[in-house]
């Protein structure tokens, strides 16, 4: 594994995007920064600007309004980058599956690397998902 990938895996900066979530998943994502979970241990930091990000963290059910914006953001992440879907909504649209406003699940729109199920997933589950992402990239 080359040094760039190694450094990337040890220092993932996370851009968090909500595409119409009920806000519960977002709160659980923020929990990962708190003293109890502290993802800065793994070098992960929240990034304010999409240009600084390595990881696009997507919650919510991809409604019509936000899909266009999400595509634009996805195009702006400097490569290499990864996408993580958090919560039942982002995985399969969850309870909104029959909604007129959520035509497609996330992974039909942009490629997703890791799925973290739950409604909302616990912070432990999110961290476990991150570990799976790291393993997956390492073994590829």
């Amino acid at each position, binding site marked *: 594994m080359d040094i760039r990938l190694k*450094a990337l895996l040890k220092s993932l900066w996370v851009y968090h995007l909500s595409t119409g979530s009920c806000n519960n998943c977002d709160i659980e994502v923020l929990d990962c920064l708190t003293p109890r979970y*502290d993802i*800065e241990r793994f070098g992960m930091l929240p990034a*304010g*600007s999409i240009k*600084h990000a390595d990881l696009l963290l997507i919650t919510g059910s991809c409604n019509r309004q936000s899909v266009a914006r999400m595509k634009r953001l996805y195009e702006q992440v*400097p490569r*290499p980058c990864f996408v993580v879907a958090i919560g039942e909504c982002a995985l399969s649209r969850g309870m909104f599956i029959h909604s007129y406003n959520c035509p497609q699940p996330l992974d039909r729109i942009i490629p997703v690397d890791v799925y973290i199920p739950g409604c909302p997933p616990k912070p432990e589950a999110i961290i476990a998902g991150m570990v799976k992402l790291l393993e997956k990239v390492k073994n590829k």
Partner: protein
Amino acid sequence: MIHLIYLLVFGFLLTTCIGLAASWIDRKVTARIQYRVGPPLLQPLLDIVKLLGKETVLPSGVSRVTFLAAPMIGLASVMVVSTVLWVNSLYPSQGFVGDWIVALYLLAIPSLSVILGGFASRNPLAGLGASREMKLVLAYELPFVLAALVPVIEADCSIRLGDILNFQRANGATATSPAGALALLVAIVCMQAKLALVPFDIPEAETEILCGPLVEYGGPPLAIYRLMKDMLLFILPFFLIILFLGGVRCDGVHLFWGVLKYVGLLALITVGRNTNPRLRIDQALKFFWGPVTFISIGAVLLAAWGH
């Protein structure tokens, strides 16, 4: 040739290593203050390696040259100023007349490079951040230069850093006189603003304008900016140590004292940034042009009087 070696070894390698370590200490202490564990030791280095390996995204319609040159200008000036400071503190006789002025000028350029990059990136948030940075520069430069004038006056009006160091070696550190102590106080406040750390992180304010001038930077240019900031985290306290605290000497127990002085200043910076809320730009301007400037003028007058 020897100057090139000085530039690469002292100006770049040594300063980078110490700067990265300082940035790790800063992040770790911050984490511990917040009851977190904090990042591992190599984290600042890994961040920079990672950013260097990423793609550079140019916003559409920017001037390529200005956008990409701005971080280089900042890094180059930091490298030169760190060479000047190291050479002066290792071989005080090798400085040149006026290197005090050169150091002051070069220390202003990193802020200018951030302003340049911010305005070049065609982003409203970056423009806002850059204009705030400009106001902040106008605010702190005056008291900073006045405070830096105090050691010059005390060392018989010599504008050579070597003379200032030699004077302090003979007569005790500048900060032991009342004028020097006041000037050191002012300089520490200005240093916090020069580093753009809380409470003066107004240009970068992550929670309102998302890193300000750096919002459009990603990949290698951002790595250069971060490296520049990490190096400044070492260079500015080092400059204050040379001016006010008697410099760093590399023989035996003196080296230990030098490290202690630096760690003390770094601890002040870190604690300051963790225990304060952010000021607004107008408050910062009032603060610097009001009380801070008065204190620094007082310090200059005291020094001229001979205290």
